[in-house]
C-alpha cells in the first residue's frame, strides 16, 4: 500500500518553505513531487525599479549565504555592458571575498549535513570554526553576512597589511580543522553509514538533468565555471576542480571538503600576490543599451544573471538563475527509492537555497485548474470569503484538503 504525504511546507528538515509531496511504500520513497512558490519575493520586479547602484544591494539579498556570488555575478555583467575593465587589485579582492564566502558556505553545509544526520556535535564544531571565517569577513568588509564589497567598477574596501596577516594566520587554523573534519566525516562509522550509498545520481543522469555545482562534480564530472569560463582573474590562479566518483551524498561531502582546501590555497595565493593599485574605476551611472549573460561559480553551483539594459539608469530586465533551481530535477531523481530517513540528507546535499530559486508563483484553483491574475484587494476579499465559507475539516479527509 502506498501513501502520499506532504513533507513541508513546514517541516523541521526544511529551513525554508517548500513542499515535497512524497509517495511512500512503507519506509521507501516511490515518488517525489516538488512544489515551489511559498517564498516568492518578487525580486525580479524590484530590480526593474531600482538603479544599477541600488541593485547591487538588492541582488545581494537574493541569498543570505551566497550574497557575494549574486552581486559579483550582477556587477560583472554590468561591467561587461559598460565595456570597462576593472583594476586588477579590485578583481583580486572580489575573488578573495568570493573564496572566503565559499569556505563559510561549505563549512555551514558540513554542519547542516551533520544536523540532518542527527550528528549534533559535528554541527556544533563546524559552526564554531565557521565563526573564524565570519570574523575575517566582518573585519574586511564590515558585515558578517551581506559583505557589500562590490560596487560597479571595483570594490569598496581595500585589504590592508594587518588584515592580510590576520587572514593568513586564521587560514592555518582553518586548514588544521578542515583536515580533522575530513578524517571525521569520512571515517566516523555511524556518520559514513548514513551518508554513503544514498541519493545516487549516476554520471549520465547528472548530465541529462543539468545539475550544477558539487552535486554535479560528485558524479565525477569536472565542470566548474571558474575553470571553464574564467571570470575576474581566475585564469591566473592555480587550482584544481575537485570531483568524486561515488555519486552519492558522501561524494558530495568529499567534494565540498576538497573544495575547502582548494579555496584555502586560492586565498593564500591571492594574498601573497595581491597586485598594487587602485581598487575602483570611475564609471558612468547610465549603462548603454544591450544585453548580457554573466556566469559565476557560487558555492552551490553555477549562477547565471541575464541583464538587459535600455540606456537608462535602471535595468530593463534582470533574470536570475540560482544554482538550486538547476538541481531540483536531479533531487527528484535522487529521492526515488530512498528511505524516509534519507530525505533530509538527500535534499540537504544539494545545499538548497529555496528562496533564491523562487521566480514566480501561479495560483491555481484546485478544482478548475485555472490560473487567474488577481489584484491584492481581490486576493484579500477571496481569502475573507474562503474562510467564511470554509467547512470544518472532516475526520477522514486526506491531504490536500
Amino acid at each position, binding site marked *: 500500500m502506498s501513501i502520499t504525504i506532504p513533507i513541508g511546507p513546514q517541516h*523541521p528538515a526544511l529551513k525554508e518553505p517548500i513542499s515535497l509531496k512524497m509517495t511512500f511504500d512503507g519506509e521507501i520513497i516511490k515518488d517525489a513531487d516538488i512544489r515551489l512558490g511559498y517564498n516568492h519575493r518578487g525580486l525580479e520586479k524590484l530590480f526593474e525599479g531600482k538603479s544599477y547602484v541600488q541593485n547591487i544591494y538588492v541582488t545581494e539579498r537574493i541569498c543570505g549565504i551566497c550574497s557575494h556570488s549574486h552581486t559579483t555575478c550582477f556587477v560583472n555583467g554590468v561591467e561587461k555592458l559598460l565595456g570597462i575593465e576593472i583594476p586588477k587589485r579590485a578583481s583580486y579582492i572580489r575573488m578573495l571575498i568570493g573564496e572566503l564566502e565559499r569556505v563559510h558556505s561549505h563549512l555551514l553545509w558540513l554542519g547542516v549535513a551533520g544536523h540532518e544526520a*542527527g550528528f549534533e*556535535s559535528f554541527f*556544533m564544531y563546524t559552526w564554531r570554526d565557521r565563526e573564524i571565517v565570519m570574523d575575517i569577513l566582518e573585519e574586511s568588509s564590515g558585515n558578517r553576512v551581506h559583505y557589500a564589497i562590490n560596487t560597479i567598477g571595483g570594490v569598496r574596501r581595500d585589504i590592508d597589511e594587518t588584515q592580510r596577516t590576520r587572514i593568513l594566520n586564521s587560514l592555518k587554523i582553518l586548514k588544521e580543522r578542515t583536515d580533522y573534519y575530513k578524517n571525521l566525516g569520512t571515517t566516523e562509522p555511524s*556518520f559514513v553509514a548514513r551518508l554513503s550509498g544514498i541519493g545516487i545520481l549516476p554520471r549520465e543522469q547528472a548530465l541529462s538533468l543539468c545539475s550544477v555545482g558539487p552535486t554535479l562534480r560528485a558524479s565525477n564530472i569536472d565542470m566548474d565555471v571558474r575553470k571553464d569560463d574564467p571570470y575576474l582573474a581566475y585564469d591566473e590562479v592555480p587550482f584544481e576542480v575537485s570531483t568524486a566518483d561515488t555519486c552519492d551524498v558522501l561524494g558530495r561531502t568529499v567534494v565540498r571538503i576538497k573544495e575547502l582546501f582548494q579555496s584555502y590555497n586560492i586565498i593564500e595565493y591571492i594574498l601573497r600576490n595581491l597586485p598594487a593599485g587602485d581598487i575602483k574605476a570611475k564609471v558612468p551611472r547610465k549603462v548603454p543599451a544591450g544585453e548580457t549573460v554573466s556566469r559565476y561559480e557560487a558555492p552551490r553551483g553555477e549562477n547565471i544573471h541575464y541583464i538587459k539594459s535600455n540606456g537608462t539608469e535602471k535595468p530593463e530586465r534582470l533574470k536570475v538563475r540560482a544554482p538550486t533551481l538547476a538541481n531540483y530535477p536531479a533531487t527528484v531523481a535522487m529521492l526515488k527509492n530512498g528511505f524516509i*530517513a*534519507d530525505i533530509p540528507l538527500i535534499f540537504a546535499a544539494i545545499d538548497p537555497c529555496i528562496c533564491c530559486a523562487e521566480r514566480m508563483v501561479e495560483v491555481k484553483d484546485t478544482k478548475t485548474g485555472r490560473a487567474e491574475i488577481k489584484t491584492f484587494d481581490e486576493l484579500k476579499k477571496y481569502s475573507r470569503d474562503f474562510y467564511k465559507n470554509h467547512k470544518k475539516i472532516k475526520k*477522514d479527509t486526506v491531504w490536500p484538503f
Partner: protein
Amino acid sequence: MAILKTFFYLLVYPGLVFLIVYSLFCEWFDRKTYARLQNRRGPLHTGKAGLLQPAADLIKLFSKEDIVPEKADRIMFTALPVFGLAIILTSAMYLPIWNYSMTKTGFNSFPGDIIVLIYLLSLPTIILFLAGWHSTSFFSTIGGVRVITMFFGYEIPLLLSVLSPAILAGSWRLAEIAQFFQANPGLLSVNVIGFFIALAALQAKLERTPFDIPHAETEIVGGTFTEYTGRKLAFFRLITDIEMVVGSGLIATVFLGGFPGGIFSSFIWFIIKTLFVIFLLSVIKAAFSRLRIDQMVRFSWYILAPLGILQIFITLLVKLKF
C-alpha cells in the same frame, strides 16, 4: 507508624518526590555535559548554573495549551502518559536503594525482581508505541512503528547483558547481585563487555542519539510526540527522565556493584554511580550520528546480540573455574 514509614518511602524518599527532583537534576547534568562536550555552555540562567532549567521547562509545558487531535482516540491519547508515568515510577521501587539492609528487606525485594524491573522498564516502550499509534497522524504512526522495531532490536541484548552478572552472582535478586559484587569487586571486570552492551541498549531504550530514530526531528518531525502538547508532553518528558534514572540505576546495580552502606552512604553511592552512567550516556550521545532504522536493527542483531552471548559464555567459564 509502619504505614507512615511506607508512605514516606513511597512519596518522598526514594519514591515520587526524590525521583522527580533527581531526574530533573539528571536532565540538567546530561544537558550540561552534552553542552560542554560540544564546547557550549548549556543551561545557564535559571537557578544557579541553570539548575532549575529542566524544572522550568516542565512547568512551562504544564501551563501550555493541551490539544487533542480530532482524529485521535481521545481516551487512549489522554490515559497513556499517565499510565506511562505510573509504570515507570513503579519500576523505580525495585532498585535496591530501597533496602539497604539485607536482613530487613522490604516487600519489593524478592528473588526474580531483576526480571520484574526489566519487564517494567520495557513497558514504557509499548506505551510510546501506543501513543504514536493512537495519535493517528502520519508522523506519529511512523514514530510508533519505529519504536517497536527498535524495541525488538535492543531488548534481547539488554536482557542477555544484564543476565550475565546475575548468573555470576548466582542470584536473581538485585540486592543479592549487588552484595555479591561488593564482596568480590574483582569479578566486576568480567562483565565489561556486558556493561557496554547494556549502555548501548539503554541508550536505545531512552531514544537518544545514535538511536533517536523514533523521534528523529529532521525526518519525522516529533515522531511519537508529534501530536502531544502541554501537560501530556510534560508527562512524557518526565517519563524519559525517570527512565534514565531507573535505567542507569539498574546498570549501576548489576555492573558497578550497587549501593552499599546505610541510608546515607547508599544515597551518595547512588548519586555517584548513576551520574557516572549518565555521563557515559552523554558521551555516546555526543559522539555518534543517528543511525537509520535498518542499520540500528542490524547493529543490534549482528553486533550486540552475539556480544551478549559471548559475554554469557565468558561468565559461565569464569563461574566454572570459580
